[in-house]
């Protein structure tokens, strides 16, 4: 018994050490660290990245955030806070978007949450598209909310469009059109309503509508 316990403890410890060493190695191998000239900042970034990788988080979005902070002359403390906050949002997005695990989705979900998209929306979007990536849809949603469209309205429109089978190109075109309208002075909610209806008119009804009429003929 004692031997088994000891063995289990040993294995877990060994795995933890290997993961930590692997994380450190992965961080050390990221050539982008050399773009950070300041020693103190580089140490902070290395440390935060290492810890995140050890927790199973992707390093790419975090490294990009760190480099953005360096470019914007943020202090090491601020960069640490921003990276930690992003990791927290990615973790939450990952939970909401489960079971799919994709770095792009995780990062897009994190951005959406930061922009003010309700957590429930992420769950609904995953439910609407359980078997395909939705990073693009999340990006468009973030773009709309950033342009001033109320998060609930943007979420509803996007979910409706997804239910009708809107393509990624149609959604990004919608986001761009709304942005153009807002820049031209139209109210964001009105712009989305008008443009969204335009896209909707091009789409077939969702399959669920036909299923309500089982005797209906095509």
């Amino acid at each position, binding site marked *: 018994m004692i031997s088994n316990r000891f063995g289990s403890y040993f294995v877990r410890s060994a795995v933890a050490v290997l993961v930590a060493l692997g994380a450190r190695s992965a961080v050390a191998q990221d050539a982008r660290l050399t773009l950070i000239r300041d020693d103190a900042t580089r140490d902070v970034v290395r440390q935060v990245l290492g810890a995140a990788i050890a927790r199973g988080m992707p390093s790419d979005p975090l490294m990009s955030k760190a*480099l953005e902070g360096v470019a*914007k002359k943020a202090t090491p403390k601020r960069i640490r806070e921003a990276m930690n906050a992003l990791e927290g949002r990615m973790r939450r997005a990952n939970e909401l978007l489960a079971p799919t695990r994709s770095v792009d989705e995780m990062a897009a979900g994190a951005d959406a949450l930061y922009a003010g998209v309700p957590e429930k929306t992420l769950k609904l979007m995953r439910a609407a598209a359980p078997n395909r990536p939705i990073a693009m849809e999340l990006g*468009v949603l973030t773009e709309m909310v950033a342009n001033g469209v109320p998060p609930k309205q943007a979420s509803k429109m996007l979910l409706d469009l997804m239910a009708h089978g809107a393509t990624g190109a149609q959604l990004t075109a919608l986001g761009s059109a709304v942005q153009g309208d807002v820049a031209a002075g139209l109210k964001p909610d009105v712009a989305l309503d008008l443009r969204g209806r335009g896209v909707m008119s091009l789409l077939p009804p969702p399959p669920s509508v036909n299923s309500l009429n089982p005797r209906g003929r095509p």
Partner: protein
Amino acid sequence: MIARATACALLVAFTAAGAQSPRELSLEAGVLRARQMNRDAHDAIVLGVLWRANDVHFASLFSANASVSRDSVAAAQIIGALAYRPSLQWPLQSEIGISASRFGVTSLGRGGNVSGYLRQRVLIADGGIWGGGAIGSTDRDNIASRGSAVDAGGWYRLGDFTATASIARTFTDDTPLMEAAGIFPLLDGADFSVDDASFAGHYEQRRLSLDAVLTLRNGRGLTLASQSAFFASATWDFTPRVSLALGGGHQLADPVRGTPDATVAQASVRFALRVPRNETEAKGIATFARLEPQDIGSVLTLTVAAPDSVAVEMAASFSDWQPLMLRRIVGGWELKVALKPGRYGVAVRFDGGAWQAPGSLAKIRDGFGGESGLVIIP
């Protein structure tokens, strides 16, 4: 005076189209003293409204002015003008403008004028050249007259200073206007023809802008004329909304627009109903983003329209936030980059200032107290 002021506004609006504040709406109220040759001076109150809007293709301007005086020296004028340029990379810019006025100048009779002009500009890195023409019809005490002009010129910008030189040849049968200005024909009834050479300077820095124009006029053929005129004006911005404009000098008769020769002094207060939303807009900087879909991803073109004196830098997540080289184009800067599908953050900065989201992109918080622009590539 009104025509002169409007001409200056047009010059400023269109020589830097795309590098001015995208939208502007302002009111103007002031006093004016004008004295025509061999006449008493008249005081008038001047009221005006100016609207101007620019984007990457069009620059448009609308102005309406009225001067009111108790002794019936009064004029009202509206002007509309439009400049078009297919893209910021395109070196040609076409302009068209029309104006209509009514006036009741006691010495020259009551009437009105309608005029229009066409102008083609060729934009070169720090300046450009133009050629164009204008025609006008004036009705004064029910007697019609016509004026026409062809002109050509060029401008060059050096830092905060812009120098302009132009020549113009004007033809008219507006005898009352020209004789009131001291210009006479050798033969009675002959049409008038004069050549003008103008040299103008514009200086602008922070709150102050200065303008000055010297015009030399000589008669041609049967027209006897040898005149010069100098007009200068200054504008001081007390706040982003309120500015004071002072001006004075001599203006030569303009037979195309029917305005008389006069010595003018003016002071006015301008109130901007719409002020720039941020420093970028105040500097006259505008950014434009365009996506050209490819088989995979898109080519992103980011164009920054900015005055020549402004240094522009750009960084983005697709460059690991390292500064990107922008290509200098007429009137601004440009970046073209092929991107794979995904989401990207972009930021620009001007004159080494803080990084900020380009105006034409959705703005997302960056976690550092600022914002970045968001680009979605399908």
